[in-house]
């Protein structure tokens, strides 16, 4: 490929990528499947083999960025349950799909690749979906994220195992060195990383080069000991301490490089797909079945068994319904190594495209779909079950119903208690169950989105309902209740606020607006000298202390 052809290929890639991104932003769709799709088209014109080098850098930066952002502490109380779900899901779906794979005539190894594509789901696509939505995470979203984390770790482990036992002669030594590589990365992070950053004196250019050199260094080590470059890039990411202030500049710089190479990777990947045969389509259909039906079903059953409500169990499953980009990385590695049947590779990429788009659709309509199923009595009424687990004084009336016992909920509860107003707290998060039982006189352990919860809370006789979380679907559910109580809800912005007022809310609290009002007075007071800076600071710190006592809020924003 001449220099001109190279530039022509890159021009094509970026122009197509830009056009698709415009489309994706406009319709709030994820970008990865667009890139893949574009690749399929670009593949008709461009000799993708030459781009493979650059595409590999795409993988490297992608995995690096993933590892930098990796935060094992996130997910908190859900970690145990999500691990159980992932493991059971990987085992059950895994075994079934492995059997299916063998059944359709794949050899053992290809059946394994087939299984991986069917079971693992994608954190990148899911993350961008979550980001585009309102900046809140409900229980099922947090659960899905936590499951993704486990699956991603499993994926990295699988890649390590594959490269130790399949692509090379197969030795424990390769495995051990792979693990040692990760250990070395953690040691580097602990003892050396800071020194480099200090020596760079926050020169962005040098920090960027350091990051790239780390990637190169660890990949070179990986190549030397014969494990996958993915493991090397992952180790490099772990070697970077992502705490302030280092992350701001180095990670940003690397992030932009990632943005440059990632489209090249995904588009090249798509370009590798050939025109699908009947066989490809057949395998693809099986993958779709596994992703859209089998996986959510298994997730649902496991979560129900772990005593989650049916809504959380259903929606979690439909947050996980896409082929993982780690599965794609595994697939391309196997293809280049000549181990993967081309039809299977094509099927995996095509299934990834369909499921990544499909996931956006299910994400959008899962809630409505679930409600519909409830109306159709697919899920049996659990009023009695909810009542058993709850505590509501008989004959309670004219009470305040508070949705959720997070920080905002506690603030309302406290306000009620200080004036002896009776209240009921609704809560569905198992991690807050204890706190609710300990502190609240009346509570319902059920989901806001299900009617049984409101029946148990005696909503018909309530005087006021306070939606403490600015989740639009919650607010709409509350407003749709056929009751006389006044309703106070929260909204993220004035647009949805106005919408909720239209639907009959008495009062809509918008944090931005409320804070603006209050802050305006404070700023004026301190600028005119009415309040001293010290006083202002004291006020703030007092408020902070109170907030810390309440514990975490449900309102969390993603990075």
């Amino acid at each position: 490929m001449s220099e001109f052809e190279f530039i022509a290929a890159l021009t094509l890639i970026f122009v197509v990528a830009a056009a698709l991104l415009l489309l994706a932003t406009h319709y709030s769709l994820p970008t990865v499947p667009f890139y893949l799709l574009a690749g399929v088209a670009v593949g008709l014109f461009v000799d993708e083999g030459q781009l493979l080098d650059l595409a590999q850098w795409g993988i490297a930066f992608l995995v690096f960025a993933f590892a930098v952002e990796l935060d094992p502490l996130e997910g908190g109380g859900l970690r145990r349950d999500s691990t159980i779900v992932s493991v059971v899901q990987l085992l059950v779906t895994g075994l079934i799909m492995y059997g299916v794979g063998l059944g359709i005539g794949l050899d053992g190894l290809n059946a394994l690749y087939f299984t991986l594509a069917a079971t693992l789901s994608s954190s990148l696509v899911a993350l961008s979906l979550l980001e585009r939505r309102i900046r809140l995470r409900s229980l099922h979203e947090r659960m899905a994220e936590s499951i993704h984390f486990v699956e991603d770790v499993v994926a990295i482990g699988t890649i390590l195992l594959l490269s130790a036992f399949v692509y090379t002669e197969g030795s424990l030594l390769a495995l051990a060195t792979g693990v040692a590589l990760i250990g070395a990365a953690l040691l580097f992070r602990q003892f050396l990383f800071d020194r480099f950053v200090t020596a760079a004196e926050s020169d962005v250019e040098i920090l960027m080069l350091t990051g790239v050199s780390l990637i190169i260094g660890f990949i070179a080590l990986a190549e030397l000991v014969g494990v996958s470059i993915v493991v090397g890039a992952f180790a490099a990411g772990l070697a970077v301490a992502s705490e302030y202030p280092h992350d701001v500049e180095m990670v940003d710089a690397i992030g932009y490089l990632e943005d440059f190479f990632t489209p090249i990777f995904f588009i090249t990947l798509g370009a590798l797909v050939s025109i699908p045969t009947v066989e490809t389509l057949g395998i693809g259909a099986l993958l779709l079945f596994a992703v859209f039906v089998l996986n959510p079903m298994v997730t649902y059953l496991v979560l129900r068994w772990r005593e989650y409500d049916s809504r959380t169990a259903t929606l979690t499953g439909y947050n996980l319904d896409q082929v993982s980009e780690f599965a794609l990385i595994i697939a391309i590695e196997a293809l280049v190594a000549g181990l993967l049947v081309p039809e299977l590779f094509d099927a995996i990429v095509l299934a990834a495209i369909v499921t990544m788009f499909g996931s956006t659709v299910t994400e959008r309509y899962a809630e409505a779909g679930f409600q519909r199923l409830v109306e159709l009595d697919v899920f049996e009424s659990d009023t009695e079950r909810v009542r058993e687990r709850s505590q509501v004084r008989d004959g309670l009336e004219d009470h305040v119903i508070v949705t959720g016992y997070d920080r905002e909920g506690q603030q309302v509860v406290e306000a009620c208690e200080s004036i002896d107003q009776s209240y009921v707290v609704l809560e569905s998060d198992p991690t807050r169950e204890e706190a609710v039982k300990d502190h609240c006189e009346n509570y319902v352990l059920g989901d806001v989105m299900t009617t049984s919860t409101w029946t148990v809370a005696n909503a018909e006789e309530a005087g006021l309902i306070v939606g403490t979380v600015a989740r639009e679907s919650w607010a709409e559910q509350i407003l749709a209740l056929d009751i006389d109580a006044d309703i106070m809800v929260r909204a993220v912005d004035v647009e949805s606020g106005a919408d909720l007022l239209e639907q009959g809310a008495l009062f809509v609290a918008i944090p931005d607006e409320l804070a603006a009002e209050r802050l305006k007075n404070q700023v004026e007071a301190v600028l005119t000298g009415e309040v001293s800076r010290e006083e202002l600071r004291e006020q703030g710190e007092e408020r902070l202390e109170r907030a810390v006592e309440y514990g975490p809020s449900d309102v969390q924003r993603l990075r």
Partner: protein
Amino acid sequence: MPLGGIALAADFAIVVVTATVLSYIARRTGQPTLVAYILTGIVLGPVLLGIVTEEQLIEVMAELGLGFLLFVLGIEMRFDRIKDILRPIVNIAVGQTILQTAAAFGIAFLLGFRGMDVFIIALATVFGATPIIVKLLDEKDELKTLPGRIDIGVLIVQDIYLVIVLALVGAGLEGTAGEILFDVARILGLMAAIGAVSYVAYQYLLPKLLASVASDRNVLFVVGLAWAFLFIFVAEALELSVEVGAFIAGLSLAQLPYSTELKERMRPVTDFFLVVFFTSIGLQLEADYLLAYWQEALVASAVLMIGNFLIMFYLIDRENFAPETSFLGSINMVQVSEFSLVVGALAVTQELVDEPILGYLSLMALVTMTLSTYIILYNNRLYELAEPYLGRFEDEDQRDASLSITEDHALLVGYDPVVRETLPVIKEQFDDVVVVDRSAENVDELESMDVDYYYGDVRHGEIREQADLETAGFVLSMARPSSVNRQLIEETEDDTLVIATAEHVDEAADLYELGADYVVLKEVMAGELVGEYVQAFVEDRDRFRDSARESMNRIRELGGTPTEPPREEIGTAADVDGGGDE
């Protein structure tokens, strides 16, 4: 073997790692990273180790590096930045280019160069390396001083000249005078055509296009890249140099409000590929070539450093600036531009000159860049030494005073409802209000307001620089994520009043720790208020209902559902419980 072979034994990987190591050393010795990159090529190339050759991937990456460099350069052409000193700057730049080209020509001729060699040397020897000057002045906080601004202005004008030189050298400069003239006309014609296309795009397409994507972190970046590639490709297809296409692509984006943000996003990618580019220059050199004219290079460096200083001093002084301004403005510019190497490398590719000439230029670049770093670092001390002799350049009506840095102003970051609401209060208290915001939706509103407004992410150094963060008297930041606010707090003076927002309580505690005067926890505030409203409701429902209805009209109005009462007369949220603050 699966994927791989990209790091181990890959030339490109060796280049980057070596460049990293050397740039740390450069940092230690106060040298610009550029010197480290050229040295990387010399170390790895035939001069020393000979383990890396110019393979294809390196060539493409070097080409991209150069393309992106010119793209970024084009984006930087914001004429409003230098318009208040535009006339003197154009005078200085034109004079400097002519005089210094003549000086380079004279020196080269006296040193015994002849023919095309002397012509290329004269064209390529341009003084003033943008990356070095900008970086060092930035670190010394002198970018916004008058000498700094003169230098930047001169460099910008000079860059336009260089783009033309590049286009000419890129076209080969061959044949009879008539043919060359025809070539020049063809190049200028094509440039004009591309320029016209880009101007039309700037007028009609780009503002809308970018406004629709600017709010997304990587979409703006990818669209910018695609734009650059499109022009690079067209230029390449028309056999114009890649650089010209990239420069014009950048130029068409420069006057839009998103330019600084886009430039900051392009920078890491540009830096990354530039490493490869500057290394590739070193790679092209054989030891013999580099040292072929070492004596000549040293003589020329010495003569031209002094000569260029005198030329600049004369030109700046002639524009009626104070001696200090003239002195500092010219002593910063005593190094060969990185473009000398670009032009030289291109001339070698076009077979206009042989490698030894590139060696001569490279050696000059290395020497002058290295020395000038120290000169810039100690420029003020040098001025003190020279001051006694500069008295006779004092003049009555010097124009220096007219420019100043914004000081003691209010800096508002992130134009959200909180800032929107608070802005009138702040405007009453401060003469200068600067707003930095990265949301494309607010561009029109903010541009129409009586504030200094910068579009972009405040985490980029240049945006903070433009907003004069360090001299702000009051900072109100609603920026996310919280790490940005940490940076803001750390960079402001201790006595600056800083109010910032945090999302989590831990972050808030951190910000207080760092010295924030007040940390806004919107959710906590809102939660408290909702609690208060519940109490108000329970105490007197009817009164609450009335005042709620009133205050909610405001939300209806802002949210798009029209209501009758005008905005001034309606109650606000705080009125619901009597309007009291704590």
